[in-house]
């Protein structure tokens, strides 16, 4: 320590003549000598202060070391109690005097800080389409793309910490018709004002895409194909299940990843709960997610989901939706940028508690594989279906293939061809070309 101080002092001395080397006349020289003396005194006094501080620090350290462990813990507890009591105590009356910075000068603080702006990212999604039988396609699938060019969606995402306790996420979407929507607006609890949140517990509230299966959690630009699976689209609607509510998730203390999520929701989804919705009863969701590593390159995820709420359909029946999902992913660690493979399957079932009415027992499944065969290229296949299960009928089947060019994490061009059949309709085909890009803050990618 002493050596460091001496070095600093020396450096200060040496740098002084250099800094003012141009000065040549005598007055300047004497001034310089004076200045050097003054600086020397300053350095000396700083050195003394530092040494004093160092000595005190050492004393404190040795005191802390010599005190027995139990005593220290007891002392900490005492301190904690003291702090608690102080916090509980009568509050100080608020002072009415203005802050010193605002007083006196009369200047208002004008500068607007940008340091706390949220992280912003924006996605643009454009799709050009040719549909052999557009109206029939819409009747069968409920999917809204038109022949010709479509602005599928523009999505803006904002993320920031609200305060030490909350983090907020906001996703706004804009579509071709100029309609805007708050797709998600939620806060997550990061820290509680009363101490630590129990380990493994996650809480959020607001409006969010609910964790029902896997597809429902994705924003439009994350969909593995240009459009949604039939069952998701026809059961949950175009926007999926995005609900107001509160959610608690808990990471179970198992040796593998096992997470249970429970949510209480407003029950606003029209396709599930009817126009009046499940507002009266609310809606309730449970989701179980299990995730396993099969070696270092392969993973399996298995999920079960259940959602229920009272609907406003005739007879006010309760709607029950159950789902399962299974995802297998392979990505060799050493060549992670170049090759990967995904196989994902998800099945959905909806039932309503009332005497046989049509469309009360519906279900569908999708299964897709995606293979990254070169650094920038993906080849994908999907089969999906949807049908009324009781009484059986109104079956729809679709086969989709896609070739995607992904030049970077931030852009993709994807070409999709689909062939579909539906009861009572002639067979249909569609070709879609989609441009997908993202700007702004670097998004973290969910697995």
């Amino acid at each position, binding site marked *: 320590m002493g050596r460091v101080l001496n070095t600093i002092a020396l450096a200060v001395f040496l740098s002084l003549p250099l800094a003012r080397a141009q000065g040549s006349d005598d007055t300047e020289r004497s001034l310089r000598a004076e200045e050097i003396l003054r600086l020397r005194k300053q350095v000396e006094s700083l050195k003394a202060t530092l040494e004093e501080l160092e000595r005190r620090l050492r004393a404190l350290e040795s005191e802390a*070391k010599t005190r027995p*462990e139990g005593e220290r813990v007891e002392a900490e507890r005492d301190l904690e109690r003291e702090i608690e009591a102080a916090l509980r105590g009568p509050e100080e009356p608020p002072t009415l005097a203005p802050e010193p910075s605002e007083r006196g000068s009369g200047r208002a603080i004008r500068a607007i800080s940008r340091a706390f702006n949220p992280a912003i990212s924006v996605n643009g999604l454009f799709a050009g389409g040719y549909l052999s039988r557009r109206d029939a396609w819409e009747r069968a699938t409920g999917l809204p793309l038109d022949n010709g060019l479509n602005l599928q969606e523009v999505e803006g995402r904002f993320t920031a910490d609200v305060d030490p306790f909350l983090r907020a996420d906001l996703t706004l979407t804009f579509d071709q018709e100029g309609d805007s929507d708050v797709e998600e607006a939620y806060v997550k609890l990061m820290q509680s004002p009363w101490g630590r949140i129990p380990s*493994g517990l996650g809480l959020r509230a607001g409006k969010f895409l609910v964790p029902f299966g896997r597809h429902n959690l994705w924003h439009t630009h994350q969909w593995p194909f240009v459009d949604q699976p039939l069952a998701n689209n026809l059961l949950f609607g175009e926007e999926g299940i995005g609900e107001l509510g509160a959610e608690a998730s808990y990471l179970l*203390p198992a040796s593998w990843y096992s997470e249970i999520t429970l949510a209480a929701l407003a029950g606003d989804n029209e396709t599930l709960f009817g126009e009046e919705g499940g507002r009266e009863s609310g809606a309730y969701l449970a989701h179980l997610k299990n995730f396993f590593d099969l070696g270092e390159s392969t*993973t399996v995820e298995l999920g079960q989901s259940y959602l229920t709420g009272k609907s406003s359909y005739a007879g006010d029946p309760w709607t029950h939706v159950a789902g399962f999902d299974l995802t297998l992913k392979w990505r060799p660690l050493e060549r*992670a*940028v170049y090759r990967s493979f995904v196989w994902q399957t998800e099945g959905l079932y909806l039932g309503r508690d009332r005497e046989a009415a049509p469309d009360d027992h519906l279900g569908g499944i999708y299964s897709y594989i995606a293979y990254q065969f070169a650094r920038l290229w993906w080849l994908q296949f999907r089969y999906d279906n949807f049908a009324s299960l009781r009484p059986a009928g109104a079956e729809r089947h679709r086969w989709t293939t896609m070739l995607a060019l992904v030049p*970077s994490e931030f852009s993709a061009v994807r070409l999709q061809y689909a062939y579909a059949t539906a009861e009572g309709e002639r067979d249909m085909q569609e070709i879609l070309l989609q441009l997908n890009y993202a700007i702004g803050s670097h998004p973290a990618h969910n*697995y």
Partner: protein
Amino acid sequence: MKQRVTEKITLALLVAGAVVAAAEPVLAGGKLSVVTTIPDLAAIAREVGGEAVEVESITKGYQDPHYVQAKPSYMLEVRRADLLFYVGLDLETGWLPLLVEGARNSRLRSLAVSDGIAILEVPGKDISRAQGDIHPQGNPHYWLDPRNGIVVARTIAHELASVDPSRSAYFSGRAGAFADRLGARIAQWEEAMAGRRGKRVVAYHKQWEYLARWLGLEIAGYIEDKPGIPPSPAHLAELIREMKAREIPCVLAATFTDPKIPELVAEKAGARFVVLPSSVGALPEASDYISLFDVITERLAQALAENGGS
């Protein structure tokens, strides 16, 4: 009936309580549980922490740390940890935030160990993704200069001591011993590489700047035109022409880079293609922080000596 319901509820609460209690990890025999994003930091944390810590790295040395998947199983590792050391400078930005959030570990302390390191290539204000995957806070591959390893060891010792002050002297002692050992080896490596100072190399990705600066090598060009973006044929042709003209003897790439392109460039330009481990564990013989530089300097000395070039 009512009583039975109450009993059941009580039982359920007890079970839930037990589950929560079991979930609160207990320090394994008083050891601190440390998780790091890359194995180099784990290797240094092991040197510093000795018997007092249990260290795990999320990624393997043969992985590209830019492109890591935020696997839920990694969240479990973060959940069990008391301390997380990461590189920072946005290296892990695509995946680490999700791991930390998903781990829901309110006890976790995390620290970027870049403190006190002279960061290279900090871009100016006008940056854009048109320049590729650039890091707005500068080049994050600083662990590839072993002198920075000493700084990191001190940072880690300091942080470990602040979590476990009773072992403060132990940690700083171990960090000092490690610094001495590493310092002695640095002198040896520098001596072995002294004859290669000023030599030019071409690299695949912008990740060897710290290494090159330490050894006095000049990186004369990159195969990746822009960081993280695959190169275009036009750029490669230009690079090969330039390599020939300037007689650049060597093309460097990491173990996780597909060798096809760099190998082709080296062949066409009449240079040697050298695969270097960019992290501990990238190759079996680079098993700790010191042996990592043994392998790197050995391979470089070989490639640059035999060619003799500029």
